[in-house]
């Protein structure tokens, strides 16, 4: 296909460019808008944006090329991406995608001849409790089945704008199944900020410390320490006193709503129905560290939440909970801006997230220095998970002791779990830390469970023998994913899916992860194709070691976990797939002759190896 020509690109892009100003840190947002308008980012647009922002052309191309939802090639007027997490697989997404492709006469990964539509897969879209899911031009579709796909195909054929499609296709429900103190108690907007102002800033930080709140994004770093470091960073630089609020240079509060880990969707629910709690936690954090500006980094898959969240922000501004002199407190100014991602799991890693916020490729930075001292635009920055801020708001309101009364000594409070897979009641469950896997399975109807993937592919695979283990930093730490597999599931399939996920999501910066995840994927494909040998298993273990020890960031460090865990806990699932040979080539020699047989019309014994 010939690349399209856009001689009028300046006019076409001028509303977008005007909206964002000549601010290079808005590059990703600009590219998103261009993608929405033109369905891809043509070379002319790259040139135009580069001259408008005053940055080199290859930087613009570099950013456009990095994010999955941006396309430098013509991508079709309707771009349908099927969520491809293992839970979607288990619900038949692959078969449905094939059905859909046949219906529209397109091949997966290709744009239709008339440039109308393209169909492909994307990493988990955070709808595991209501899959199979997909995105159409970035908008989430849920509960797909043949009927819905028939309708969607019809809408596409008649070129109906996505905005006019029936709303039921886009319905996303919360599915909250168990509430505890975070979700259960009614929360009055402003109450936590008020309590914070009354108590004092230093005292509030002391409460967060006393609560022993640990980050809900996975690593479990103590939130009070992070806030203290961030605050101290400037104080040190400026030679002033710690906890001296007011008249401070810039610091930033960032809420990490990238939620890219397959199997997690609790942040989606918090942002849907508890946004006030989250924004209030950010505001308290801002008060404590002395930040006047905050960002919500919202993953591209949750594009549909943008307007509702903007509305909440607007309402809070009107109520005096954001903006200048919050709740009448002189000099307490704080506001929040929402930044949309564009399909990159790595942007959940905090330093990659900051790069992305600055309008760059999402590449994890070298550390030290850490974001708390050198974050957004080189200024001290706190990056916390959505749930962490929600919990902080509750602590601001009720105090640290109240919070620490729940959970275990090292893991206080409650934890939201996103439960999906082979259970009768998928959805969000809030438990005090310390709950056993067994108990959870009982509650969600995971009766035939054989294994649970805790905290997503980068987490831990737990087999039926370990169901007595507990959700807590002391035992099974988790960002919240809880994917259940029943007895009949082939665990190899899950590990296979996860290797594809990591290879697709590696940022490509460092050698071990860029090449190692791809090698791992190729070996898993070889085994899946029936060509695996014991030597391949050894190679997988070997690669796992290199990924874990040499990678630059957490993605590479954990990319081999699913394979290593599955090899250890379910070795049979691999062995059943192996050829009992010492060596086996990755391709089928006889199969390679098939084309020749077709051409010559021969299929006799001599035409085979």
């Amino acid at each position, binding site marked *: 296909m010939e690349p399209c020509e856009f001689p009028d690109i300046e006019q076409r892009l001028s509303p977008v460019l005007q909206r964002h100003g000549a601010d290079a840190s808005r590059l990703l947002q600009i590219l998103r808008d261009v993608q929405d308008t033109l369905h891809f980012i043509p070379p002319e647009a790259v040139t135009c944006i580069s001259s408008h922002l005053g940055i080199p052309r290859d930087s613009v191309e570099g950013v456009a*090329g*990095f994010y999955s939802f941006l396309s430098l090639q013509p991508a079709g007027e309707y771009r349908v991406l099927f969520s491809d997490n293992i839970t979607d697989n288990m619900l038949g997404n692959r078969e449905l995608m094939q059905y859909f492709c046949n219906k529209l006469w397109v091949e997966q990964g290709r744009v239709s001849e008339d440039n109308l539509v393209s169909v492909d897969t994307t990493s988990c879209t955070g709808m595991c409790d209501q899959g199979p899911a997909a995105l159409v031009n970035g908008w989430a579709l849920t509960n797909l089945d043949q009927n819905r796909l028939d309708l969607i195909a019809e809408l596409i054929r008649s070129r109906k704008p996505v905005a006019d499609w029936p709303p039921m296709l886009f319905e996303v429900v919360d599915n909250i199944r168990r509430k505890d103190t975070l979700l259960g108690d009614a929360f009055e907007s402003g109450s936590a900020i008020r309590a914070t102002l009354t108590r004092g800033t230093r005292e509030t930080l002391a409460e967060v410390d006393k609560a022993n709140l640990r980050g809900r994004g996975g690593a479990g770093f103590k939130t009070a320490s992070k806030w203290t470091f961030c605050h101290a960073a400037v104080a040190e630089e400026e030679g002033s006193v710690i906890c001296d609020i007011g008249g401070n240079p810039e610091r930033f509060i960032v809420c990490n709503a990238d939620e890219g880990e397959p199997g997690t969707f609790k942040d989606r629910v918090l942002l849907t129905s508890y946004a006030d709690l989250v924004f209030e936690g950010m505001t308290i954090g801002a008060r404590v560290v002395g930040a006047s500006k905050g960002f919500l980094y919202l993953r591209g898959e949750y594009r549909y939440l943008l307007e509702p969240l903007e509305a909440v922000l607007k309402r809070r501004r009107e109520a005096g909970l954001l903006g200048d002199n919050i709740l009448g407190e002189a000099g307490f100014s704080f506001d929040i801006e929402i930044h949309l991602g564009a399909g990159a799991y790595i942007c959940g890693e905090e330093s990659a997230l900051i790069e992305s916020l600055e309008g760059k490729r999402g590449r994890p930075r070298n550390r030290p220095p850490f974001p708390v001292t050198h974050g957004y635009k080189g200024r001290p920055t706190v990056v916390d998970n959505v749930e962490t801020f929600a919990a902080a708001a509750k602590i601001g309101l009720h105090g640290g002791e109240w919070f620490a009364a729940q959970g275990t000594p090292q893991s206080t409070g409650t934890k939201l779990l996103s439960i999906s897979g082979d259970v009768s009641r998928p959805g969000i469950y809030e438990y005090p830390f310390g709950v056993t896997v067994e108990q959870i399975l009982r509650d969600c109807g995971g009766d035939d469970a054989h294994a649970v993937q805790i905290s997503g592919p980068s987490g831990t695979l737990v087999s039926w023998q370990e169901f007595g283990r507990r959700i807590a930093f002391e035992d099974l730490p988790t960002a919240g994913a809880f994917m259940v597999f029943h007895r009949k599931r082939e665990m190899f399939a899950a590990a296979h899916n996860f290797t594809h996920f990591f*290879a697709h999501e590696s940022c*490509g910066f460092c050698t071990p992860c860029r090449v190692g995840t791809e*090698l791992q994927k190729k070996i898993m494909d070889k085994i899946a194709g029936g060509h695996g040998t014991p030597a391949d298993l050894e190679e997988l273990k070997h690669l796992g070691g290199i990924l874990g020890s040499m990678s630059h960031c957490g993605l590479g460090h954990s990319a081999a976990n699913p394979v290593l865990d599955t090899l250890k806990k379910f070795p049979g699932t691999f062995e059943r797939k192996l050829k009992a040979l010492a060596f086996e080539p990755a391709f089928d020699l006889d199969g390679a002759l098939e084309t020749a047989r077709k051409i010559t019309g021969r299929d006799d014994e001599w035409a085979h190896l």
Partner: protein
Amino acid sequence: MSKTISIDGQAVAFSDGQTIMDAALAAGIYIPHLCHNPEFKPHGSCKLCTVKVNGRNVASCTMPAVEGQEVLSDTGELNAERLVLTQMLFVEGNHLCPGCEKSGNCQLQAVAYYLGMMSPHFNHFYPQREVDASHPDVLLDRNRCIYCELCVRASRDVDGKSVFGLSGRGIGTTLVVNSTSGRLGDTSIAATDKAMQVCPTGALLVKRRGFAVPIGDRIYDHLSIKDHLSIKEVQTGGDHE
């Protein structure tokens, strides 16, 4: 007041702001590396320079030296892991050492020799990558690029041209150039640019200069990269032509 770290048991002096790699190079200790060149801001992508500090692996080119660090570098375990990384770089691209103009002067090849690489070990990826011969004086053969971004840094920070950048991600990462056509011939690069001197492989070459020194008489034909770099790099900043 001089501070010290220990590298493989040897006391090494450093000053504030130096990385472990800086301290090592100044002391004439070779830590294998490809994406590092002391003239440029550290990058930390190839991971060949990984060392063990107090039991944890870190990239020595980006890790600040801190008083009292116990650094392990020249160990069997680390060299074995570095060898695997080197093999990864070889199978990821299309390297044709015997016929390559850079043979004997190539750091990738020299590191492979140093680490005792006898085979690529993994299956080759055989990627399709574009060769760009559009410029009258320089050649870009992406088949040999290892994404060290030295040309990116040199062109941006020294030449002030930003001719090179990376696009794509993961295994689909590509080196792109700053022109609407995407071709080097339409950029402002010149054969005399710093960017043309820093490539550790044969990916960026000045035309009509190949084989000026015959293979057999080149830098690493006589000296291992360890012996060459630990003496020379401090003085010449790693220009291996």
